[in-house]
């Protein structure tokens, strides 16, 4: 076994501080796909449609897309509140999981098509 001291330390995707300060929608898409899409995209595998998509589909009855990535009306405040505090069965998300900078990136991604 290689000594841990000399082993290449292979770092996973980790919460990054966005030093530049400008939100990055492309990175937001990747973070969204890692943390959010399993529940909010119409791709359920085990139980049919996943919970987030299913609930919104029932709530909007076609008046708004249930797939959050297709929405054009989400506000930054709504996205941030939901991610941090959760809603109903959706849990809270800590800053070590999605940093404030990454949350800004998610906002940029979900609002990319907003008028």
């Amino acid at each position, binding site marked *: 076994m290689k000594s841990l001291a000399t082993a290449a330390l*292979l770092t*996973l995707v980790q919460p990054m501080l966005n030093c530049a300060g400008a939100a990055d929608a492309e990175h937001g898409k990747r973070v969204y796909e890692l943390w959010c899409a399993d529940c909010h995209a119409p791709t359920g595998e085990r139980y049919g449609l996943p*919970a987030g998509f299913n609930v919104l589909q029932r709530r909007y009855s076609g008046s708004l897309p249930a797939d959050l990535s297709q929405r054009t009306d989400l506000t930054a405040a709504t996205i941030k509140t939901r991610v941090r505090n959760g809603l109903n069965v959706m*849990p809270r998300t*800590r800053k*070590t999981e999605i940093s404030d900078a990454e949350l800004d990136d998610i906002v940029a991604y979900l609002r990319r098509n907003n008028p």
Partner: protein
Amino acid sequence: MRLPPGVSQGDFDRSLRDFAAAVGGDWVFSKEDDVRLYDDSYTPFFGEPDKQYQASAAVAPITVEQVQQIVRIANRYNIPLYAISTGRNLGYGGSSPTYSGCLIVDLKRMNRVLEVNDREAYMIVEPGVSFIDLQRYFDDHNHAFLVATPDPGWGSPVGNALDHGISPVAGDNFGMVAGLEVVLPNGEVLRTGMGGVSMSHMWANYPYGFGPVLHGLFSQSNLGIVTKMVFWLVRKPEMEQGFSVTSYRSEAWQPMIDAAQQMRQSGLLYVTGIGSPIRESMSTNDGRQPYGVPAVRALHARRDGGSITEWEQLGRDNHIPVARVVGTARGPAGIVRATLEHARDVFAGIEDTELKLEKPLDYSQSNPYRPRIEFGGLGAQETSRGHFYFSPVFKPSVEDLLDINDTIRKVMLDAGDADMLANYGWSSGWSVTYPKACMILIELLIHDNVELNRKRRNLYVKLVDACGARGWAEYRAPVAFQSTVMNQYSFNNHILLRFIETIKDGIDPNGILAPGKSGIWPKRLRKV
């Protein structure tokens, strides 16, 4: 801001400055909005904030040295710490501490896969790596191993194994652990097993080392903060295929179980399970979609629970068997096919049984155990507040299965809880994850109704007591009930707990690490 009990505001403020100096100011969370993110999103005390377990602050180190510094600072100010890996211990408390006022040591940033050894099938990981992270890592680096994920996959292999978590991949996840690196309560770093040798050449290959085997001491305990874990890995098989065997005749049941277990004991099956389809047909066994036979519910609601003859008749009337076993083979396709042929021969020798094969899973096409964040299970529940688990273990035998269900059913009857009785009055639990133990996994749903939540918490305690009196103690417990569960381990005047407390007092004299975890309290907080 909530203060740790017994700590002055001045000392707490000073400790936060010291923590910030150790890990950086961005990684100390003391604002109310940030600290509340560590509350249990699925607390059994919904609507009763004064009863919820809450942290005072959180700190997120990224290196072992930072963890050591945190522990030393905590000792200086008597700050109780509660370490979490990814903090997603669903049904058992999430990231919530066992003692309000603890400062959370959030290890999520320690998220490195340090080594994956393809030839020897092991890995060394840090606690912040999630099952999903690990799958991505395996994919990116072409490692052909399965990720031993529970459901959902947002949790940590380290945290899950430390809480004796289970998965359909490896079964007993802690059973795959070969070594730990631990920061002790005095800030020193210990490695277990062969990790104790200065040149830890064999750490991942031989778990025992020399002398007492220590790694179990750090699971479900508060004797150290685990910063690395060595896991043995399960190779991705070519295929797997399951089978079920059913019978309408109760006398066939135990021979069926024995046959399946013997195949497992011979290494032919990697998972087995037992059940009674007719008795379970009052619900889906998970409290989600009650269906089935009204007469079944009526029989469960009767004090005597029905006779063997009555259940057989009910089964025949409704075309639902009384007995079932399941088994799954995994490996090269030829071996799997041969195993299933052997199973056919074995069960053909038991009268009145029928064997059905499940659809084979071809791992070259898909991975059924790919970890995902998916709330389907939670989202399909009748409430939106989640659940907590009651999870005793029992023997894979007809006698034990019937007895534990009868015990649980009568507790629910006595409590007058018709809903629980209707959904969980009889369940076969999960497959035999452990080679010689089954597990009943009852979800106690959390509601908006505070009184109903209180009733369910009381029911939980009654279930623990009633099952404990018969020798079926829990394998794992939610934060709020860990002392209740530990109390069941009462042999020789609770010598098990007293022994752990002796160790606790010796290595953690200030009692700073996770007071109350698994019912283990430091001397200063121990109730006589």
